């Protein structure tokens, strides 16, 4: 079985006039297997989110290749890129800001379905179903983002992400802004969905304890590079890299 996502020497260099070039992500390579949950940890500025933004093609890589389910998506544009998004969806850190404040949650969740040509009635039916699958009452479709709590909004964001049945879900600090009790519920939801849909998840998170609970494998990023990789329990028990050691020692 081939990997669902394969990243090869992915690099992002930010250039600014009068300042030396800055490699936010520096030649990282890794793969995500079907059904696998891969965690990426690292401190702020280590390049985790830049990597996610490149993989989801929100920013263009300077160098390297991104292969999604066998297809090179590194330079795709327009319609072709849209097709690639059928296989890959994202859940962001701040759920409320990831929805259009002037449109209802139902509009946001159903957008991808409408884009792929489902009729109105079908979309409404699916949205209700998706909300329910994510633990929200169906009438939440008529609410606006500011009318629901952060945890509820993140559930809606997950419903939006799984609407077109992607193979890969990219979660960039998806639970970091939530209270621990809500965080726990969202993780339970993600792991249920993962089982039901055989989802692969790229789970970007700065909380190593959470990654230990949730992920099959973990990458440790530091200053744009991958400094360590392995099964979370193994990495935590026996960190090889100095930075990883420091990181684990710092946890209260």
């Amino acid at each position, binding site marked *: 079985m081939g990997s669902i996502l394969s990243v090869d020497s992915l690099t992002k260099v930010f250039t600014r006039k009068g300042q030396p070039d800055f490699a936010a992500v520096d030649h990282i390579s890794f793969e995500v297997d079907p059904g696998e949950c891969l965690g990426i940890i690292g401190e702020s500025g280590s390049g985790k989110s830049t990597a996610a933004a490149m993989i989801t093609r929100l920013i263009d890589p300077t160098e390297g290749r991104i292969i999604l389910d066998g297809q090179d998506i590194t330079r795709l544009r327009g319609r072709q890129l849209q097709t690639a998004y059928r296989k890959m969806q994202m859940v962001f850190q701040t759920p409320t800001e990831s929805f259009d404040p002037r449109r209802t949650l139902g509009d946001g969740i159903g957008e991808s379905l409408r884009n792929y040509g489902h009729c109105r009635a079908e979309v409404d039916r699916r949205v209700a179903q998706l909300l329910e699958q994510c633990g929200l009452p169906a009438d939440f479709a008529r609410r606006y983002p500011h009318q629901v709590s952060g945890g509820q909004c993140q559930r809606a964001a997950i419903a939006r992400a799984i609407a077109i049945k992607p193979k890969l879900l990219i979660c960039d600090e998806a639970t970091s802004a939530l209270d621990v009790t809500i965080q726990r519920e969202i993780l339970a939801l993600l792991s249920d969905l993962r089982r039901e849909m055989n989802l692969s998840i790229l789970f970007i998170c*700065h909380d190593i304890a959470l990654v230990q609970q949730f992920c099959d494998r973990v990458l440790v990023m530091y200053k744009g590079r991958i400094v360590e990789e392995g099964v979370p329990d193994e990495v935590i028990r026996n960190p090889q890299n100095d930075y990883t050691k420091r990181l684990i020692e710092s946890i209260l």
Partner: protein
Amino acid sequence: MAEILRYEHVDIAYNGRVVVQDVSFTLDDGEILGIVGESGSGKSTIIKAAMGLLGPSGQVTRGDIYYKGYDLPDLSPAQIRKLNGLELGMIFQSAGASFCPIRTVGAQLYESMTEHEPIGRDEFNRRAVELLKKIGFDNPQRILDSYPFELSGGMQQRVGIAAAMLMNPRILLADEPTSALDVSVQKQVVEEMLLVRRTFGTAIVIVTHNIGVIGAMADKVLVMKDGKMVEYGDAKQVLERPGALYTQTLMAAVPRLRRFRPGETVPPLKEWDATSQIGNLGRGTGR
């Protein structure tokens, strides 16, 4: 130890809507109290009330907050200004943002100090350098000459602590002082505050949603939920054997790092089992 701060049946309302209800606790000299709870539980509001920082719409509607025989909510703004800084120090979540961006750290610390006592530049400099050294800065003069944005987030936070400690207050009130920081920097800031207590005997009230920080620092813990106290007591006991049902749920939800002792083998990789670890809260309907 002598009691220095006492909350008695305090209610606090914003625009007439009660957000904190019937909160009572005491703080002893040199004690560290942690206030925990989820967003919106009223934990920050509690310490803002002591500093008179509730803003025009907030008000203590019932109960008293005693410090040295003063009832803090009844003091005039002028009296509050005398106490704030000098006796009650505060650290905010983003200390960097509480500094003026276009003036050096030193200039701002000097200004806040002259507000409370007549002091010359040289004397200020001597004391500031001494304090910064004491709380672990290698090169204090460079910090004083820097603008806030020239320092990293962790440095800014530590300078925030230094700014609060310059007046050597008896109580330090800290509102989520480590929440915006990476874990390695978070640990530094926690150690900084512990050092402050060891060195100066300062009592600290720390508001945070981070249970790890509480475990590392607090002598006592107050747990808030929807504006009400659900548990108050000895930190070790509340964290390890919580009495209230809500505290139990909260503690169970905290992601904890499973560490391994040397020689201990890692259990074989098992399928992610939602029911055994986090799934038992079920899907619920969120909040």
